[in-house]
């Protein structure tokens, strides 16, 4: 072989003058290197020098590598002595990130009770006091929310559950922000509180919550979502004669309403659309005893008959409003968890998820829904506290180790422990064939202080 290089690799090295050229590395190559790095490494890399920074920005704008389309999973954390929040990033080969917790007041515990658009909703709880705030774990910025004492049902909650001050996660059902720029004076925070009987709105920094009066004990709110700038609320609606109304639109002024404030314009007006849950609900579809599609887990061995229940979520996918019904089978186990008296505990298992597309008819101001058999190339993430949609294309990273786990047309779901149900479940539901794959084993636990959450970080480069 005439042209074979016979010398070994190492022998041909020569002493060189190390004037590094690495800061001049072409954007395309740096992009290829970044494809093999996790987000944390990419962020650190972006601060090395100006030329790398501009390359990272370019790559970011081209393929959205940095602002990860794939949400992170906040793992349950221990309230006592924890200094970090632990997140799991599914993208690439998968990474764990430890992000510092904010400092709580002395003797307090910090609880995470939701997330929205890059912000975590946290409660700083002591035995006598409870404050709610937004926390951006990427930048470390903390924004205070109005005192919960300004929410009438909070006082009732404390009266009914005086020992539950620490269980802020049960009072705060869901928080939804209108924008990721939470420090903007026009950003609206929407909250579903306690038993879904209170819908309250505020701007970060306001002195009080503004209660939306149409949601009450008799007309609870299942989910809220900002979609195309309008707040959508999933409710049960009927008129005075008990007839069902598919859609009602309200406007509401949010702010501190200081009467003697000459500048009342500081308040923000929010458009709220109440969508009747019944436009998509088909009672016949709800009951599915057992589920043979669960791949990796034995059926529940219950001491009682299995029943079904549903929970519904609003999700936005490419500007389209979706209603999802998560149907759970439940039953009761006779168990002795903490060595006290054994008693019946409710336990659940996902049976299936149904997806409906909401069609609003502008002319007649009504709405209807169409059942979808496929999500197309989308992946949805649902949970009580936050739901979102991402395009599947961006998640099929070349070095993905997840094989068939991460594919389009599937729904990642989370189910946390609550006051009535001790099941913590997390998995993937395939809309194609109804198969369910658990991401980790379902656990039964009493610990309901600490929740798993989907979290989409706002990372700017």
């Amino acid at each position: 072989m005439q042209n074979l290089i016979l010398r070994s690799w190492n022998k041909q090295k020569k002493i060189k003058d190390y004037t590094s050229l690495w800061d001049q590395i072409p954007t395309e190559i740096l992009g290829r290197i970044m494809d093999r790095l996790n987000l944390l490494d990419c962020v650190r890399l972006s601060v090395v020098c100006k030329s790398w920074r501009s390359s990272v920005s370019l790559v970011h704008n081209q393929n959205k590598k940095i602002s990860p389309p794939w949400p992170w999973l906040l793992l349950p954390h221990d309230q006592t002595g924890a200094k970090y929040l632990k997140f799991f990033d599914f993208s690439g080969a998968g990474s764990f990130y430890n992000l510092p917790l904010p400092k709580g007041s002395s003797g307090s515990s910090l609880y995470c009770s939701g997330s929205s658009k890059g912000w975590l909703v946290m409660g700083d709880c002591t035995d006598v006091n409870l404050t709610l705030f937004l926390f951006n774990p990427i930048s470390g910025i903390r924004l205070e929310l109005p005192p919960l004492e300004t929410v009438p049902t909070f006082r009732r909650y404390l009266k009914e559950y005086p020992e539950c001050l620490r269980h802020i996660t049960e009072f705060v059902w869901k928080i939804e922000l209108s924008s990721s720029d939470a420090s903007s004076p026009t950003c609206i925070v929407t909250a579903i509180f306690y038993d879904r009987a209170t819908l309250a709105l505020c701007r970060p920094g306001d002195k009080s919550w503004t209660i939306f009066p149409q949601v009450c004990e008799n007309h609870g709110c299942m989910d809220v979502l900002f979609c195309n700038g309008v707040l959508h609320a999933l409710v049960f609606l009927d008129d005075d004669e008990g007839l069902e109304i598919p859609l009602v639109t309200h406007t509401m002024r949010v702010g501190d309403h200081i009467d003697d404030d000459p500048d009342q314009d500081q308040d923000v007006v929010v458009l709220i659309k109440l969508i009747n849950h019944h436009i998509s609900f088909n009672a016949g579809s709800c009951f599915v005893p057992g589920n043979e599609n669960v791949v990796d887990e034995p059926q529940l061995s219950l001491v009682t008959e299995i029943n079904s229940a549903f929970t519904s979520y609003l999700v936005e996918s490419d500007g389209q409003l979706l209603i999802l019904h998560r149907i759970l089978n439940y039953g009761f186990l006779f168990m002795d968890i903490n060595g006290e008296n054994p008693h019946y505990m409710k336990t659940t298992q996902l049976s299936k998820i149904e997806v409906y597309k909401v069609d609003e008819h502008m002319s007649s101001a009504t709405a209807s829904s169409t059942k979808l058999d496929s999500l197309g190339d989308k992946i949805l993430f649902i949970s009580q506290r936050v739901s979102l949609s991402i395009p599947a294309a961006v998640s099929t990273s070349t070095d993905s180790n997840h094989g068939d786990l991460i594919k389009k047309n599937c729904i990642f779901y989370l189910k946390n422990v609550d006051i009535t149900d001790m099941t913590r479940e997390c998995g993937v539901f395939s809309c194609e064939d109804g198969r369910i794959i658990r991401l980790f084993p379902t656990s039964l636990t009493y610990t309901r202080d600490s929740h798993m959450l989907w979290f989409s970080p706002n990372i700017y480069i």
Partner: protein
Amino acid sequence: MSTAATADASSSGDTTEGSVRLLTLQSEDGEVFEVKETIATQSVTIKGMVDDDCATSTIPVCNVTGRTLAMVIEWWNKHEIGAVSNEKELKEWESQFDTIDDKSDRDDVYDLLMAANYLNIPTLLDCCTSAVAEAIKGKSTDEMREFFDIKSDFDEKEEDALRKENQWAFEN
């Protein structure tokens, strides 16, 4: 200057060795290499030239030194179909590129990256980007600067602001 272990560079243009056509490549610093066409076409760039009949005279390989080109040719030889008996042996041979042990290694990888990029050699590009990524993983920004001999050109205020924006990446 070493002429590497190249062929007799007496004739330019395409010559043949048996039935195999030889291509003549010339590095930036003037070294000339004769390489079998079947091997050199692992470079998408060269393959394009061959397909377009543009590879009949000496092919100048700009921006790639003779030393680097010799390494590239060695890579091609190893990756020629049938050159290595099995995949495992090839992986073992490739593994010498997996880790960057010192600054000399590091700069060889840089040269190879540039060559692989210019000549468009996917296998080599993959291998080198992987080696760099492995070296970067888990390093702090300052450690990266030290590793690559890069001086920060941000002023202190700018850098503070950048770090503050992504506090999570710089605190632990």
